């Protein structure tokens, strides 16, 4: 058999509206970064390099949400140049915290526009990448977990299916032996409806999960809302809980809208 020098897969990292934290997670893989650079070629990663290599790219990691007409165009060109496209983080998979604007009444928002001249053009809504182009895999989290990022890249290199589970935070929480903050402390927690991936971080710091990995595969948000109410949380607290970093993820959005319909009676 002829030995063919396999060329290294080209990786690109793209940024849309975001905080840079998810792409920083790649640079935060301190122990693995040099190994990784031995296996892949960084084709485009502006945060790290001024050199760029022409596409097409084998794997594009896309951070950030679409908020401007220009970006709505740009994402198509990124898609065209990418064999595989993986979105990284809550902004790219659900519109991010900036999707809170999506709930604002347009009139209301325009009314707080300053008197100074406007030079910004922005879309009414902050939307997920998948609302614009086909996405091969969504990596959740605000920010993503670097272990999961490495798993995705490693699986891509090995040609396997990445082990990115879609079950709840609870499963990870219990595997680790963390004491349930909701049952044992009465602390409201979104863990049961939130997708795992963070190693159940917040409960391990005695804090309720606030849902930064977005909804799990079969989120029963209504049942959890009932439970929070029993713990003394008013509807408006619940609405805020579902409206943070994944406010526009389907299940969370629907729950917050349903709660809004219920009214914002406060049990506090």
């Amino acid at each position, binding site marked *: 058999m002829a030995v063919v020098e396999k060329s290294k897969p080209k990786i690109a990292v793209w940024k849309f509206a975001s905080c840079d934290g998810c792409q920083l997670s790649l640079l935060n893989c301190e122990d693995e970064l040099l190994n990784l650079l031995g296996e892949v070629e960084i084709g485009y990663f502006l945060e790290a390099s001024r050199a760029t290599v022409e596409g097409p790219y084998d794997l594009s990691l896309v951070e950030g949400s679409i908020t401007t007409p220009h970006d709505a165009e740009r994402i198509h060109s990124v898609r065209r140049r990418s064999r595989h496209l993986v979105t990284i983080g809550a902004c790219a998979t659900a519109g*991010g915290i900036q999707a809170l604007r999506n709930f604002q009444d347009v009139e209301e928002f325009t009314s707080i526009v300053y008197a100074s001249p406007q030079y910004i053009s922005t879309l009414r809504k902050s939307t997920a990448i998948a609302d614009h182009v086909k996405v091969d895999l969504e990596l959740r989290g605000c920010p993503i977990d670097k272990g999961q990022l490495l798993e995705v890249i490693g699986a891509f290199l090995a040609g396997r299916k990445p082990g990115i589970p879609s079950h709840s935070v609870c499963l990870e929480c219990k595997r680790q032996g963390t004491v349930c903050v909701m049952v044992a402390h009465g602390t409201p927690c979104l863990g049961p409806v939130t997708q795992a991936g963070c190693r159940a971080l917040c409960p391990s710091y005695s804090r309720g999960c606030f849902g930064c990995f977005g909804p799990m595969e079969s989120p029963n948000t209504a049942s959890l809302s009932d439970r929070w109410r029993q713990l003394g949380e008013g509807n408006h607290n619940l609405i805020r809980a579902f409206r943070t970093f994944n406010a526009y993820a389907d299940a969370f959005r629907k729950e917050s809208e349903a709660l809004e319909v219920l009214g914002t009676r406060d049990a506090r």
Partner: protein
Amino acid sequence: MPDKGEGNGGSFTVSVEALARVEGEGGMWVAVRDGRVAEVKLNIYEPPRFFEGFMRGRRFNEAPDITARICGICPVAYQMSSCHAMEMACGVVVDGPLRSLRRLLYCGEWIESHALHVFMLHAPDFLGYESAIHMAQDHPEVVQTALKLKKVGNDILALLGGRAVHPINVRVGGFYRLPSKRQFAALLEPLEWARSACLETLDLAAGFDFPDFEQDYEFVALRHPDEYPFNEGRLVSDKGLDIDIEDYDAHFEEIHVEHSNALHARLKGRGNYFVGPLARYSLNFDRLSPLAQEAARRAGLEPVCRNPFKSILVRLVELVWACDEALRILGDVELPTTPSVPVEPRDGIGHGCTEAPRGILYHRYRIDAEGSILDATIIPPTSQNQPTIESDLARFVEQNLTLSHEDLTWQCEQAIRNYDPCISCATHFLELELVDADAEGD
């Protein structure tokens, strides 16, 4: 040489569409006409994210988590400024060991952020590489040190904050849970290594070629009676400013310019000013630990440094100091008995100003008795430096018209990177123009 004017009389532009090795998205554009710089734009097209807008109506204790998302590079700075502001609004002071642990957390962020910038974003400019990735081929050991150093910072963040990016363990009033003594002790050895690695690197970096570029900036930073500033102090400058942070508004203003999605900040009636490591260092040299002072001198730095290209040295001095400070805190911290102090909301206004790695980060909130945020103002360091960056560019280009276009472009980029600008931070503000709904979608 291509499209470059012949000598002084030429007209040309230097532009970079997308700046690399900075956080966020921006470009630059310098127009030279007849040998004079006619126009400079630091074009920040990073889309705005309207944080101040949707902070309204949120609860006061959500501010640390939400504002952290303005920036993935310096989330702790946002968490600290917002916590301090909220605590001031609620009339609570977090003191003693909890305060020390906050400083420790901040050390972690400084170490991580400075290590990233010094080694991976800035050093390649001095050594002539496109990136740390390219540099790694010839100098793997430098990149290894960089990564190891970054990791020391991130380990502090991960232990005390839960994770490096957007820590989850910071709350108004303190922390959610405290690590154990044993876990803290595990940080000692790596920090000692980090401190000596920074010292060595400083000696090395002192030998870099620095353009001759001393500028007469107005430096603005916090100043504390006995500490190198992190969380607290008065706002001072070398041109006579000396105010309480509550008076920020009376002295500073933000304006909106056409070419940028970020606001520009100015000192009222005086204009541009400079925040960040150079300012902090030059205004607080006497507050550095003896080891850091000594290291600065050895690297040939005076107690005041006005050459922004030397900010790489100043960052290294701050790295030495941050390791020193972290070790000091770990050496004598008594674990607090509770991870936080209770904070009850009340009707009020709070200000917070802390030293992010890139300079002062100011937050102001008005909250009601229920703890709802009525309004929020957040002024990050990069907005404050933007006018200064532009004036640096103008002067730098004027001084270097003889360089090849390619070199000039690269050095202009470097002049911007001197500031370690964080563009994501700079574009968070309130104004919003909605384009026609029909233009939405694809």
